């Protein structure tokens, strides 16, 4: 039997429900805990907005504008975490000239909490990545790269937990297979482990041992591939038991809205990715209700 059923509302339907139950809702919202998760992926050193002359992304993006937006949201809800799903580096001369220093310094100024590691984050070699670590006040999370025999040993955690307004949030990272994508000379002795197996270990640990209320995966695997052999976020979602949200990257996928998949337990998992180059900020809001009876009505998903 499904412990927690879910229903996906369109925005219009949810507005109706919201109006209908205004009196009750406004009271229960008072007691609800509200966690906001913000995310980017594949920013690829895009620090400035695109120029007005750009054929695809005119006037979009820019980290100084992202800073304003993040600050606004944090002012509305201080219980906010900010993540990136990797490929921070490479794509503009900022990376060629400064090696990622500026990207890490700016993400630290925006108070990013953690990031996954993308394949392009190895573009100046594993030594080039290490060289920028002093500029990062956020965590690099990757559970399926074994860095033991590399200079990055000790600098990357498999997961991290955050206690936000009493809600315990566990976040783990996953990286893509590097062979064939990155020159071995660059990633050296980094060992890639099966992301599906590692994900199951991580989410079990975060749920059962760390007692997390919310489990989030930062994935640089890619959203979806035709080749079923390639690990991908859509498959990962369906193979997990406890992961609530997969924040994806690598495939530069512009989703119209977060994808809702069903996990092994029959519960909803959100898979989201917001394109690339810092053009969009993903925002997922989680509401917890202390009244346990609420769970009988399932988790309402509004995307």
């Amino acid at each position, binding site marked *: 039997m499904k412990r927690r059923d879910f229903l996906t509302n369109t925005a219009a339907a949810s507005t109706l429900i919201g109006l209908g139950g205004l009196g009750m809702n406004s009271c229960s919202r008072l007691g609800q805990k509200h966690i906001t998760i913000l995310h980017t992926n594949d920013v690829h050193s895009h620090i400035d907005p695109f120029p007005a002359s750009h054929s695809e992304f005119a006037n979009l993006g820019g980290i100084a504008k992202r800073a304003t937006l993040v600050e606004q949201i944090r002012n509305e809800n201080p219980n906010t975490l900010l993540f990136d799903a990797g490929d921070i580096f490479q794509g503009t001369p900022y990376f060629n000239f400064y090696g990622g220093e500026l990207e890490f310094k*700016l993400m630290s100024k925006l108070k990013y909490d953690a990031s996954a590691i993308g394949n392009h984050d190895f573009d100046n070699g594993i030594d080039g990545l290490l060289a920028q670590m002093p500029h990062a006040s956020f965590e690099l999370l990757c559970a399926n790269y074994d860095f033991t025999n590399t200079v990055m040993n000790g600098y990357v955690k498999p997961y991290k937990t955050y206690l936000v307004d009493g809600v315990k949030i566990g976040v783990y990272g996953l990286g893509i297979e590097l062979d064939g994508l990155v*020159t071995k000379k660059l990633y050296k002795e980094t060992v890639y482990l099966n992301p599906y197996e590692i994900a199951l270990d991580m989410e079990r640990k975060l749920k059962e041992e760390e007692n997390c209320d919310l489990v989030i995966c930062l994935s640089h695997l890619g959203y979806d591939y035709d080749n079923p052999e390639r690990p991908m976020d859509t498959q990962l979602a369906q193979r997990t038991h406890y992961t609530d949200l997969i924040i994806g990257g690598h495939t530069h996928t512009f989703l119209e809205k977060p994808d809702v998949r069903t996990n092994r337990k029959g519960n909803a998992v959100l898979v989201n990715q917001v394109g690339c180059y810092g053009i969009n900020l993903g925002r997922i809001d989680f509401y917890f*209700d202390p009244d346990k009876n609420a*769970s009988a009505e399932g988790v309402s998903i509004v995307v």
Partner: protein
Amino acid sequence: MIDLKFKQIVAIVTFCFLFSCKNTTGELVEIQGKQVPIDASIKPTESISEFVAPYRNRIDEVLDSTLAFAPEPFLLDDGKRNTSMGNLMADIVFKETAPIFKGRTGKELDFVVLNYGGVRSIISAGNVSARNAYEVMPFENYIVVVELDGSAVRKLIDFLTKATRRHPISGIQIVVDKNGGLESVDIHGEPFDESRIYYVATSDYLVQGGPSVGFFDEMISVSDTDYLLRNAIIDHFRKVDTLKAVVDDRFIQLEN
């Protein structure tokens, strides 16, 4: 009277806080997801802009002087089996590498093969600067020359004809029939001779990645040029006034 009403309201609100809104995490009841575009309506945070400015100024000084002119845009999707942007890249690599390779080894460069995914940007019509070279080739990849025997070249050609992506080539002409079968291959204007050795310029990325990248399975040798792909592009921009490349017949598929 007013006082009493106020007290009642306070009592009700307090009641609500105490009983309806317990201080436990509780169950996840609702998830809302959306994406927020970072567009022109958002004001930049000044302290961040100011922090970036000196980094940007230094880059602009180096990159923004005009080196050449593009009369038309060079695109990555304007031809079926070859593209103007891919052809521009492969031709630049051929022109800039052949004299270096000849100077170092006394040998002639035969042709060039690059990977479509390695050409990271188009070039728009107008003035062309070193910035374009960084956009097209942001990676620190070097040009290498690979020595291949005839059977390895056949495998490479086979890989190129089966590829769905339009990998840039130069110095070689490939014709396939309407079913994708190989019709003819000319290298340097001569029919492909499977009994000889060929020298192929490419990116070290395709060589170091090994067989899993798909291009070069069996190599006799690899010669370094110590020449960054991006620097070859910039040097070419400096040499020519007007960039020239069009979709042509270097790789075509016959219709019947």
